[in-house]
């Protein structure tokens, strides 16, 4: 494949961006989810990930439809509502060599799927978990989800009286090792975070505020484009230099928190919030809780830990995919059965 003409830009494995595209989106024009799909395409293209080496897994909802709209060359599994983590876990165990991206929504994650979500976090399963968060159930025409902020107002005038679940605070507390929040309208921040996410070994949990233009983009919504443009407060500016990039940028180390990723890439977080240290778990949770109390919407990289073993490390698996191990490795020999039988006589 990829016999691109010289005029078309190709990535470092020789593929044009076209090879990362999906089918035409059937989501509403202007839906934040479409912008997120675009950033995923760009990130995978720029990182030179082979499309065949990516598994796309999703649950149910508008967000979960979106894997159809990026990377058609990647195998995809659109499962049942709230259960993407389980499917992803099984698929990753069967083939640990793949890069796995899970797409979920706020209902899919924070309500029906909260049980699986928290246990996936505990396991530090190596995958990228994206919540396309619009605070609302759109396919059923606009009910609040569990990430809707306290006091936000539905189109119908209904006011949300329950506190929002902060999926980032939850993820940090429970064991995810790469946690951040972005906004579908912030191309630069989201793209950098996605590229770093591809380099990370462990659970990446990205909560991406993604306005629903049909049911939650009005005055009084805290998940609207307008609200986010006015209230988005990045705690750091996310920069990413891939291992294969030759560009060296000078930076002031006092103002930048640098993280070396396990593939040799570099994540550079320019501090906006004074002395914010994204390797400090307790501080990260405290910062998020304080922000929630003050009605602030923080974005950026909240927490990163590149040392924590993943679930695959704990299982001590062979390097090859379990799914395609030959029979010689998976069926014990006759002598093994003979010995078992002898012991039962």
């Amino acid at each position, binding site marked *: 494949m990829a016999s691109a003409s010289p005029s078309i830009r190709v990535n470092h494995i020789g593929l044009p961006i076209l090879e990362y595209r999906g089918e035409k989106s059937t989501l509403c024009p202007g839906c934040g989810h479409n912008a997120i799909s675009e950033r995923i395409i760009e990130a995978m293209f720029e990182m030179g990930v082979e499309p065949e080496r990516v598994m796309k897994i999703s649950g149910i909802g508008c967000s979960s439809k979106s894997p159809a709209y990026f990377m058609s060359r990647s195998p995809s599994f659109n499962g049942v509502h709230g259960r993407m983590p389980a499917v992803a876990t099984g698929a990753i165990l069967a083939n640990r060599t793949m890069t796995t991206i899970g797409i979920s929504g706020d209902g899919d994650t924070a309500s029906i799927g909260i049980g699986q979500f928290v246990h996936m976090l505990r396991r530090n399963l190596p995958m990228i978990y994206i919540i396309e968060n619009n605070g609302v159930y759109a396919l059923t025409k606009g009910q609040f989800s569990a990430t809707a902020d306290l006091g936000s107002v539905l189109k119908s005038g209904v006011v949300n009286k329950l506190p929002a679940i902060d999926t980032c605070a939850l993820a940090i507390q429970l064991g995810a090792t790469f946690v951040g929040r972005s906004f579908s309208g912030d191309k630069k921040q989201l793209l950098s975070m996605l590229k770093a996410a591809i380099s990370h070994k462990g659970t990446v949990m990205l909560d991406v505020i993604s306005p629903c233009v049909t049911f939650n983009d009005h005055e009084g919504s805290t998940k609207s484009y307008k609200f986010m443009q006015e209230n988005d407060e990045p705690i750091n500016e996310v920069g990413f230099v891939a291992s294969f990039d030759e560009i060296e940028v000078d930076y002031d180390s006092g103002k930048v928190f640098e993280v070396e990723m396990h593939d040799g890439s570099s994540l550079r977080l320019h501090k906006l919030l004074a002395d914010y240290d994204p390797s400090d778990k307790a501080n990260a949770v405290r910062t998020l809780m304080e922000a929630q109390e003050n009605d602030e919407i923080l974005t950026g990289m909240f927490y990163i830990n590149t040392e924590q073993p993943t679930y695959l490390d704990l299982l001590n698996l062979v390097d090859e995919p*379990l799914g395609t191990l030959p029979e010689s490795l998976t069926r014990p020999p006759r002598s093994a059965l003979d010995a078992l039988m002898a012991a039962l006589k």
Partner: protein
Amino acid sequence: MATGHLAPVQQPGARSAQTRVVNDFSINIATVNGSGSQSANSVLMKSIFGMGVPAGGKNLFPSNIAGEPTWFLIRASKDGYVARKRDSEILVALNPASVEDDLRAVPAGGAVIYEENMNLDHARGDIFFYPVPFDKITASICPEVKLRKLLKNMVYVGAVAQLLAIDLSVVESGLRRQFAKKQKVFEQNFGAVKAGFDYARDNLAKRDPFYIERMNATAGKIIIDGNAACGMGAVFAGVTVVAWYPITPSTTVIEATIDLLKKLRVTPEGKATFAVVQAEDELAAIGMVLGAGWAGARSMTATSGPGFSLMAEFCGLGYYAEIPGVIINVQRAGPSTGLPTRTQQADLLSAAFLSHGDTQYPILLPGSVKECFELTQAAFDLAERLQTPVFLLSDLDLGMNNWISEPFDYPSKPLDRGKVLTAADLERLGGEFARYRDVDGDAIGWRTLPGTPHPMASYFTRGSGHDDEAEYTEKPEKYQAVMERLARKFETARQLLPAPVAVRDSGSKIGFLAFGSTDCALRESIDQIKGRYGQDVDYLRVRAWPFAQAVHDFVASHERIYVVEQNRDAQLASLLKIDLTGGIAARLRSILHYNGLPVDAESITEEFAMKEGL
């Protein structure tokens, strides 16, 4: 517990002069849950087995950690019958809380070995009483108070062995195997056995007619429970991903699997060729199984009633998106929480149609521990061949109790990994790949696995409406075409599933149909019916749904069919009524047993005789 027949009070001594009852009786050991009697019970059962006498054990235990009554039934049967015997002739009474009921259940002419301080000997005049001061004996041989509770169990092993004339040397060698690597523990336990044995020899005059005599009917045989056999089957089927949530009575399937995987499936470099995940619930367990099956693993879970219900939605996805996976359901008594530690065969209908919409699943129905081993392996091959979740329905009786069996055979065929296209295949096809297209006429498409290095390899797996290229569709004709192919695929399954077993084919006009663990009681009942009434009855044991043509033929060639099963709602008969054509379903009658205890032969025989007017 079963109720015995209380004969009028008579002098038991008169009866003891009658014929000896050799190698054909049942022992009921009544203890308190948590008293550590399990290894003693096992030693006693294996001692009978060691005497060459066919023996089996059934643990009737409460859903409780400690304190509630529990019973262990050991049946010795020279004829090789392994079902629960309705009445146990010998009672070992160690639990004051249940002794009144336990005593009432002993049939006339039976014997009771009991803790002396319970003062039972005037309770009935038609059975033999053997008081044994278990506590005193135990105290005399064991200075450590903490150990006494456990060793007391071994004292009754010794006393029972002496009364039944079991060779002490056989008990000794059984005990030695039980505590193979723990010489001190062996010595303590054998000391207790011997103390009980000596007490009985010196103080109890044998009056009852029950004896164990040496036979040669167990040479080469093994003793194993069905759950361990399922675990073994999974390992020899090359399972690679196991996801589960603990639930009685299926837990030991996975524990046995893990145990064997750790022994047999670690590379010389110390790496695991398997992954086991204790999931957060059954929803996650089945999701992991399907995720793994989709990505090419041989994946499995084991569960029971409530967990099986939770798996419904995902199984429907597995059916519609055509993803392999093996689900072992060790049935317990429902509905709801039901009786978690009692047996039933009442998940057959829910298994057949689990999940909303039109769904169907192949179901395998092992009737013995050997079939637990063989059909678990078959389940993996069938799941990948048919690209669907496959259910294996065992039950608590088969799964958690000890059964005598021929040793298991090493699989004779290589693993069947089903229809999977490689990159080279795709290259040859010029990229012509439609995931759900029936290119072979068997209604099974070809699939690719994630990671196949070819730009045309990927497809979009979804539980929403799709066409044969796996594209989303709501078009009526395209949706319907897939549903119709799935129905045809089920007919392919019918051809591939294990055939029923014609257990008895005498040319009778009456037939029995049954599945699973009902088999052992039914075989015995057929002999009883022949012996008592001279009536031959044919018997076909069903091993899979959808039913093979041979099941239809069996019904068609008999005037009356009794479907014997362990549930209230006649679930096998109901499935038969759905499947049978031409009005022959009217020939079906039911014999049902559903009180939580394993079915026994007498109950079947009596109901059959009543319904037949014999």
